[in-house]
């Protein structure tokens, strides 16, 4: 029988090991799997490479994971945000590495990783410092830069609804990087606002087919990062 549902966030992240590459969904707080990230802080795996669009706000979620010195390197497009305190501080001290990737290239590299495409060419970043040292190739008289697919050991993703096969649907712009990240990890771990019976999601509207998902944990009322930041909360609390 196929049953991807696990009982706790601790069980969901129990296999994440030191040195793992971990993708984390979200665009700011929208789609950020905050309960899974906090479980990863509890687990304590270190030397992680984290792939995520941002570096978190305040002292919760990704920012707390970084503050807890579990992250060796960030691969992201926008490490500077309102209320982003932790990453800038460590970065200025040279205590965390940064690979800066244009947002669309980041999304496409993750998709490529999930789709078995080792590399592709894109017009984005040509003639800029972010293309330095990369292969440039001309197609139809226009220069393109070669970028590599990215794969991860784990992806942590937040969605709205799931079933026991791991089929997922998302909520509005909280969808963002979730669907591509689900495809690109050996083990994709999802926190879902609700879990429904098989058939409870219309097969025409499934966004992430269950084949891409390994574990699902139900978190009916996820914390709102911005509220925690306003209240100046810190994790671990």
């Amino acid at each position: 029988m196929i049953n991807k549902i696990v009982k706790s966030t601790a069980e969901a992240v129990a296999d994440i090991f030191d040195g793992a590459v971990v993708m984390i969904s979200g665009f700011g707080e929208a789609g950020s799997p905050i309960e899974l990230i906090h479980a990863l802080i509890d687990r304590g795996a270190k030397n992680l490479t984290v792939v995520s669009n941002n570096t978190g706000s305040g002292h919760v979620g990704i920012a707390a994971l970084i503050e807890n010195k579990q992250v060796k390197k960030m691969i992201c497009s926008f490490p500077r945000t309102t209320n982003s305190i932790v990453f800038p501080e460590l970065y200025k001290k040279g205590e965390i590495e940064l690979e800066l990737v244009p947002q669309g290239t980041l999304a496409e590299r993750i998709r490529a990783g999930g789709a078995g495409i080792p590399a592709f060419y894109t017009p984005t970043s040509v003639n800029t410092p972010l293309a330095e040292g990369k292969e440039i190739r001309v197609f139809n008289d226009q220069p393109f830069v070669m970028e590599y697919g990215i794969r991860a050991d784990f992806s942590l993703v937040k969605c709205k609804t799931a079933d026991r096969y791991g089929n997922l649907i998302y909520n509005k712009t909280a969808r963002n990087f979730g669907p591509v990240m689900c495809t690109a990890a050996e083990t994709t771990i999802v926190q879902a606002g609700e879990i429904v019976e098989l058939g409870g999601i219309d097969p025409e509207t499934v966004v992430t087919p269950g084949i891409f998902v390994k574990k699902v944990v139900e978190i009916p009322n996820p914390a709102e990062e911005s509220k925690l930041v306003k209240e100046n909360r810190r994790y671990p609390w």
Partner: protein
Amino acid sequence: MVINESIKGWDRNQMAQKVAFDIPDGTYVNLGIGIPELVAGFVPAGREVIYHTENGLLGMGPAPEAGKEDPELINAGKKCVTAIPGACFFHHADSFTMIRGRHIDICVLGALQVSGEGDLANWSTGEPGAIPAVGGAMDLVAGVKTIFAITQHLTKEGEPKIVKECTYPLTGKGVVNTIYTDLAILDFTDKGLFVREMAPGVTFEYLQQVTDATLYQ
């Protein structure tokens, strides 16, 4: 090569059953056109297997009842099928993300020839003037984690289909994991092509005699 006409070997259903027995619970499986399509009917009770069809359906169910066919709900062989609860539909690029990205566990497909190195030829006899058609076969063998080839041991003309080197154009090189024929089950290992099981009445000597590639036991 002398063919022993008294050996009946396994029939198509028995071959499909042998394959089905090797499909573990909880796997994602793509079944090719022909004998592979029979496999789903023989998966042992208690195993939950999810079938992928590359034209955009995960969770393919059996053929519909007569009169309930939907020409827009078909499998890769363009036959009408059904969708199980928990199924989902997607477009072709997403479907081949599943295949190429190594998300599908097992693919069962037919073969024209398999070499002793696990090379597969199953899309073209390379005859001049023939219409070449490849479909998703090359994507499947390049991307699916485990490839089961299911085929008669000999051609209709009595020629070995398990050969030293394929003479037909390849579908993929070194891709087959196990061959299921009417005479035997053969596993590819680092040390060569090993006989796992033989049909009633088949001896290793006989099997080697009707097999061009070298066998081990």
